[in-house]
């Protein structure tokens, strides 16, 4: 149990996927201008991340390892993620107008969110997690992504009212804010449970 808690806290705070590990930066800067969009994107990522982790974990354990084809992992994993995202998009469009309106535009973006592929690779290749650990790690990483995104959106909404020097407006000040947020998150560094 303690191990799972360590994985969870580690993935959310200590090794926050955006603020310490530089992954998923495109959506982090792209979708963090409004709080609503940011939280929607965050939830979509948690869902896709968890589901594709489970699928790829199973494929890796029961297909690639027995066949001695670990070297095909990148091609297989990215195809799985891409088709899973595609299927989810179709499913959502067919069955829930509300969900489609909320998540519709974010789903295609997720395919190239490097955070998803990174988590999948970590679960299988880097850490060799069990299924339970895989699930915990994926959910927690997604929550960490959501947290970073939401914090950033809060800051950027407030910056709309601020008056930064011309050259800093837009993306540069977003980077500086991210730097200071990352500076603060260094406080979680080395946290052990």
């Amino acid at each position, binding site marked *: 149990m303690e191990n799972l808690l360590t994985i969870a806290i580690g993935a959310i705070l200590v090794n926050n996927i955006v603020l310490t590990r530089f992954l998923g930066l495109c959506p982090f800067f792209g979708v963090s201008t409004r*709080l609503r969009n940011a939280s929607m994107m965050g939830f979509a990522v948690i869902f896709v991340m968890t589901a594709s982790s489970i699928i790829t974990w199973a494929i890796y354990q029961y297909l690639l390892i027995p066949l001695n084809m670990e070297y095909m992992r990148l091609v297989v994993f990215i195809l799985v993620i891409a088709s899973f995202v595609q299927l989810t998009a179709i499913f959502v469009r067919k069955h829930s107008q509300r969900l489609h309106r909320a998540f519709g535009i974010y789903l295609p973006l997720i395919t190239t969110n490097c955070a998803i592929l990174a988590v999948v690779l970590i679960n299988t290749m880097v850490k060799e997690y069990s299924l339970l650990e895989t699930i915990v790690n994926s959910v927690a990483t997604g929550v960490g992504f959501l947290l970073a995104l*939401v*914090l950033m959106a*809060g*800051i950027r*909404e*407030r*910056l709309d*009212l*601020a*008056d*930064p*020097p011309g050259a*800093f407006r837009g993306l540069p*000040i977003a980077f*500086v*804010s991210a*730097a*200071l*947020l990352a*500076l*603060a*998150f*260094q*406080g*979680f*560094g*080395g*946290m*052990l*449970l």
Partner: protein
Amino acid sequence: MKEGTKLVVSPSPHVKDAISVRGIMSAVIVALIPATVSGIYLFGLHALAVIIASILSAVGTEFVALKLMGRKFVMDGSAVLTGLLLALCLPPTVPLWMPIVGAAFGIAIGKCAFGGLGHNIFNPALVGRVFLALSWPALMTRWVTPFDAVSTATPLAKGFGSVPIFDLFVGNVAGCIGETSALAILIGGAFLIAMRYIDWRVPLFYIGTVGFLMLFLGQNSILDASDLDSLVEVGKESLFHMFAGGLFLGAFFMATDYVTTPMTKLGRIIFAVGAGILVVAIRTVGGYPEGVAFSILIMNGFTPLIDRVIKPRVYGTKRGFVGGG
């Protein structure tokens, strides 16, 4: 909880009036005099040099940055305060270039890049401090004893029981220039609260949360206490964690900053409790002995969200939702 709502200065973009800003800043600087004096008294003239270097660098950086931005430089005292606060949370042994670099970083990156006073998200003094701590960890952890300046560790690094509680309270321990004496900070803090410049809830809930959680999470837990003696030990350890490190300085002078903390009373309580939890987490399971600076910076990051949740504001409409929760 209706009384005590006289706090008229609302934060962030509204503070535009240079005169009122100057008034608040001078009051806070005056309130810092006891801590400053005790720091110089305890750690000697080098501490004074650090303070002066820090203030000059802060003001100088603000001057240059505003010139570069093509804006008017106003001596509103905020840069002086940032410089002073930064110096007070530096170890008394730092070489003089460190307060200069730290204050310049805090002012330029933490404040001016965001558009100057009132627009910054993070407390500039803490931005400078944390940048220094991460960049030169060895230089930022060289501690000395008061008066005779012998190398030692801070009470927090040595752990509970290493120093008498009374020494901690008056500040006769190793630590940053202005943070060791809870008494001196308390005097200045009481002045600010009496003048209604800061909200008493913030230090109360911040320090209170740390003290409360430490009843359970310290080496002596209240849950294991069987007799009176062990209860006294638990109480002492809780007091130890309240007085040790930078908690008092942070709680009275940094977590109460108008610009970087929530606007509403409830928001400020959430801020203070959150920061308290973070301090305990970093001190007990974290990688650093002290977590006050980090805790406030992290909560600074949460402030816009807290303000969103506690004070809902529909776009284009002004809701008459002032204070309270």
